[in-house]
């Protein structure tokens, strides 16, 4: 017991003295949160509406403009010549362009709408709004009383901000990095440098050594999660709806999965260098396909289906459901996430037992 405590203490001390590890596991994740938290990637698609009108049609165009502005500040209205507006539309800088002209024969008002194909759904709904605004005009001018009285009310739902989505994902990512680098940085490096051999030339048991490694890594992971949560709370006022204990348990389980994955990789790789070479692409791939920075919904369908089963997806989704939606153990999604993590853990442990080597292969 005493040995276990002393080794664990020494491991944690070594971790805090290793600046590179500190930066990667504590500082870097928060930088990621800050960068992605400040930028709003949801606004990449245009919401500008272009109006082009003639002198005779100006009155109607302005009416439509006022009506659109009354809906709220979802849309930015631009005015200009039809040539300029159509150019802007083909440059993907307009959602929809409306051309107001007068038909010379019928003397009627012609409204032509040009819709942006890249974002057709939004363009169509704007087009509906415009049709409604124009028919209201018509009713008013003809002095017809409308039959329906339509009212709407906005219901408050849980608003998932970009940052709320991001924080659980980045926590999952840093747990992954901590687990992988933790094993490779200690066990593989120690093995390579002959430190393991020297340690086991003393009465120290392999069991004690392993337990202390896992224990110290878990403590560091918990600390990592706490620091990320507190700093994101202080800087971005993130809200945590669910149980903190469940967050901690999920984080520990996730950390164990990636520790086991680290052991698996270090069993296959002979040196620190080759372990990193295996780890990096796996890490990158998981990072961008497991809904860490952005929702997996942007992935093509086949990739979306496959990536539902990655350990990082289970961890990120699990943490996110607990933190932002307040889901608990009785929830189907949480159960799936925890089950998925457990299965991955068992798979990695099984492979690690087969492949792991204490001694340097010569």
């Amino acid at each position, binding site marked *: 017991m*005493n*040995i276990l405590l*002393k*080794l664990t203490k*020494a491991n944690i*001390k*070594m*971790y805090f*003295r*290793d600046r590179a590890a500190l930066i990667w596991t504590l500082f870097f994740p928060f930088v990621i949160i800050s960068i992605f938290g400040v930028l709003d990637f949801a606004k990449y698609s245009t919401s500008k509406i272009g109006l082009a009108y003639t002198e005779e049609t100006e009155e109607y165009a302005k009416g439509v403009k006022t009506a659109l502005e009354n809906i709220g500040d979802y849309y930015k209205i631009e005015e200009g010549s039809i040539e300029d507006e159509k150019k802007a539309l083909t440059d993907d800088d307009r959602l929809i362009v409306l051309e107001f002209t007068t038909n010379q024969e019928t003397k009627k008002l012609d409204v032509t709408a040009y819709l942006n194909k890249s974002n057709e759904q939004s363009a169509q709904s704007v087009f509906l709004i415009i049709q409604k605004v124009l028919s209201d005009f018509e009713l008013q001018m003809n002095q017809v009383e409308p039959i329906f009285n339509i009212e709407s009310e906005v219901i408050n739902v849980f608003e998932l901000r970009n940052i709320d989505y991001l924080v659980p994902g980045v926590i999952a990512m840093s747990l992954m990095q901590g687990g992988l680098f933790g094993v490779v940085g200690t066990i593989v490096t120690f093995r390579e*440098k*002959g*430190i393991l*051999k*020297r*340690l*086991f*030339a*003393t*009465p*120290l048991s392999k069991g004690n050594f392993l337990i202390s490694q896992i224990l110290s890594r878990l403590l560091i992971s918990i600390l990592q999660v706490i620091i990320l949560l507190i700093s994101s709370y202080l800087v971005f006022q993130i809200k945590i709806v669910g149980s903190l204990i469940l967050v901690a348990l999920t984080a520990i389980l996730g950390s164990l999965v990636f520790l086991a994955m680290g052991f698996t990789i270090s069993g296959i790789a002979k040196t620190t260098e080759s372990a990193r070479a295996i780890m990096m692409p796996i890490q990158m791939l998981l990072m961008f396909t497991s809904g860490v920075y952005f929702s997996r919904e942007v992935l093509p369908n086949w990739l979306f289906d496959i990536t539902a089963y990655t350990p990082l997806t289970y961890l990120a989704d699990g943490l996110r459901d607990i933190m932002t939606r307040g889901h608990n153990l009785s929830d189907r999604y949480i159960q799936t996430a925890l089950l998925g993590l457990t299965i991955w853990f068992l798979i990695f442990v099984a492979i690690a037992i087969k492949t792991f080597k204490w001694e340097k292969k010569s």
Partner: protein
Amino acid sequence: MKKKIIKVKNLSKKYADLQAVDHISFEVHENEIFGILGPNGAGKTTTIEMMEGLRTIDSGDIKIYKIDIDRNPEKAKEILGIQLQDSEYFDYLNLCEILKLFGSFYSKSVDPKEILNKVQLSTKGKSFVKELSGGQKQRLSIALTLMNDPKILFLDEPTTGLDPQARRMMWELIEKLRHENRTIILTTHYMEEAELLCDRVAIMDEGKILEKDTPDNLINKLLKKGFKKDIQVKEANLEDVFIDLTGKQLRD
């Protein structure tokens, strides 16, 4: 007749198709410095790692204080002081912390400060391994073998790669440890080192022990066969010149 505290009988070890150690037998007496000499690949390290309980044996028998090492490697580790060939230590623990940590693995251990003093590293307690010179690193690895105050020390090439001053310092340290009533098993490439330090040596090649005796007896045996050196040996050699010019004290 001195007490025989280590008995090795018919010891063998094979790696794939290489017979690393081939039926060797020898004994080590209490409080002697026993040298295992031989070219690279002779089987020196394999032999002592089997004696330390770090490697299993194929056949034969090793007894240290009547403990069967192959059956009780854990017991052996508790009482032996083991220094390995070129091992490294933790980057982010200072010397004191490394010694303390290693000490905690034994049921009883000595004060790290006392040990650092003994190996002349008392001012380096707060330093990290990367700040040490080659000689200091080697002295740290000797210090680590002393944490359980062992009666038997295994030193695997403790002077390889050291400059003449650091080597002389290591020799003094090894002599000092013997005077503290320890038994030392030493491997080396350097014959003058073996001649100076060892009470008895075993000369190995290709896994076999070719000769084992005191250095004096071995030399006399060779001379009796009518051996003559090609060049007349002078009273001093170039190393003596080097030490005379640069001084014997250690440069760290």
